[in-house]
């Protein structure tokens, strides 16, 4: 089951929340969806599951629109926002009402209650739930139909460390079972551990759509430890090469491969203790990509308020 978004646009008045967005989420992969606040992540996800009506373009799930699916909950499980249940209803009754639409049996309701760790509060009213409990209830709803695709918008938002660990383990096991997971998250470190593919959106347009490996691929940057930092800096200085002294005995050099660097320093008699190619973190890659696409950029301190 592929998620396919084709030239999707969503306009509110004159402003585009999402503009001509196209991408695919391959079956059985974990795809991260990144972007600054207001970049259009939620709008895109809501359009895929039919809650938002696109101004143009479409989103298809296995070739069909979400609304055409005979059993939407068996195909796609969705977690959108924490507040998606009536305050005065118990968690159990909320799940029971949702399950009834698909004729999903009570035994499955009890299963997802256990799975989401809600057993002790299943008969309590949702209004009294903490943010974390509300999120668990949302996950329970998403898993109700044992779906092949999971669409999760900020699943770790507002969770305490225990909750974050729980979500991480859950996502790993869901991905390990071969389910397609499409999730947005601000926790890039978490995402870097599980995502195969990353789509970056900024100001309503796709900025990058590439495998995680390509995004975090080795940069032309080498970290070197030596007791002759200054001599090395002088040696490699030249067009296309920059160096930055990090500490007393480490220096980062970009523009030369580690092999070239080691050879040249050997010729000059500079002893290197360590030569390490620096890998770009997802966070660095993300910040580079979204620079300039941040919708609500913090204004400069010296800016005149008038």
């Amino acid at each position, binding site marked *: 089951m592929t998620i396919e978004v084709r030239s999707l646009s969503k306009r509110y008045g004159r402003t585009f929340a999402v503009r001509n967005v196209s991408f695919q989420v391959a079956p059985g992969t974990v795809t991260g969806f990144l972007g600054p606040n207001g970049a259009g992540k939620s709008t895109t996800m809501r359009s895929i*599951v039919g809650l938002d009506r696109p101004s143009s373009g479409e989103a298809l799930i296995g070739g069909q629109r979400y609304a055409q699916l005979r059993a939407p909950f068996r195909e796609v499980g969705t977690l959108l926002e924490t507040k998606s249940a009536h*305050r005065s209803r118990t968690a159990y009754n909320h799940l029971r009402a949702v399950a009834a639409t698909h004729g999903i049996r009570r035994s499955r309701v009890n299963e997802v209650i256990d799975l989401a760790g809600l057993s002790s509060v299943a008969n309590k009213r949702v209004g009294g739930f903490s943010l974390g409990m509300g999120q668990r209830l949302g996950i329970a709803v998403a898993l109700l139909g044992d779906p092949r695709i999971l669409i999760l918008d900020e699943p770790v938002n507002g969770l305490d460390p225990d909750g974050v660990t729980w979500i991480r383990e859950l996502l790993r096991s869901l991905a390990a079972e071969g389910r397609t997971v499409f999730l947005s998250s601000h926790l890039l470190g978490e995402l870097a551990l599980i995502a195969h593919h990353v789509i970056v959106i900024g100001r309503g347009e796709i900025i990058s759509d590439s495998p995680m490996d390509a995004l975090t691929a080795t940069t032309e940057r080498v970290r070197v430890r030596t007791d002759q930092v200054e001599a090395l800096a002088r040696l490699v200085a030249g067009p296309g090469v920059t160096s930055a002294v990090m500490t007393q005995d480490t220096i980062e050099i970009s523009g030369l491969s580690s092999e070239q660097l080691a050879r040249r320093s050997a010729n000059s008699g500079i002893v290197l203790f360590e030569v390490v190619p620096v890998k770009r973190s997802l966070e660095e890659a993300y910040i580079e990509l979204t620079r300039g696409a941040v919708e609500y950029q913090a204004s400069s301190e010296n800016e005149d308020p008038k």
Partner: protein
Amino acid sequence: MIAALPSIDDRAHLSFTRVIDSERIKFTTLRSNPVTLLIVFAAVAGLGLLTAVAAAGANDAAHRAGILPGDLLGNVSWIQIITAILGVLFIASEYTSGSARTTFLAVPTRVPVLLAKLLVLACAVFITGVAGAVAAVLGGTAILHQSSIELVLAPPITLQLIVGAGLYLATTAILSLALGAIIRNVVGGILAAIGLLLVAPLLLGIVPVDWIHRAASFLPAPAGQLILAPENVGAALTPWGGYLVLLAWTVCATILAAILLVGRDV
């Protein structure tokens, strides 16, 4: 652990009867709904009986002789506010609480949800209204009979009053459900329902222009209430004609609600 799930199979899919079942569960799992229905029953029955008791205890012969069968259900025009609020809440609270998102993720075609809510609400209110009216009309005539006041109630009229009370309350509740679906806000929906059912007839009634008076009798509440006043021969509409006018309002509001429901973002 999650993968092997014998409890989910191909039989799990959407159907309209299942959406009705879901809405029935939603309706019955909020304690306020059955409590409200109980209050409606008690009010229809209790106020009808009180009207009979008051007439039976009256001293002047004119008052005693002046009571009409429809008077026993005269309070329905006020009680309708309770069932109207019930109708608005049934759908507007989905938006206020955020549960609408879950509801329309489960039923992405959306319109079946509106129709299922309509059926569940209509059944619940109709049964409650009929039960209250049975108690009010039969109990009321019995009380009056003991005081030697005989209400002439032909069986068709009795049936019209009893069924009419259920139909009137159920139909105005559906009209309110549609208003709640259009406005998608609890407070706004309740104000709109009270405005249309209660305030508009009063306001148009005090305007001293003849055609406006006549137009006011085609508002949903005054028209629909004719069914509860079979002796009101001076009206511009027949009792069932009046009910049809109310029904027309309700159908139009429901169609508008369905069109908006399909087109809007949740």
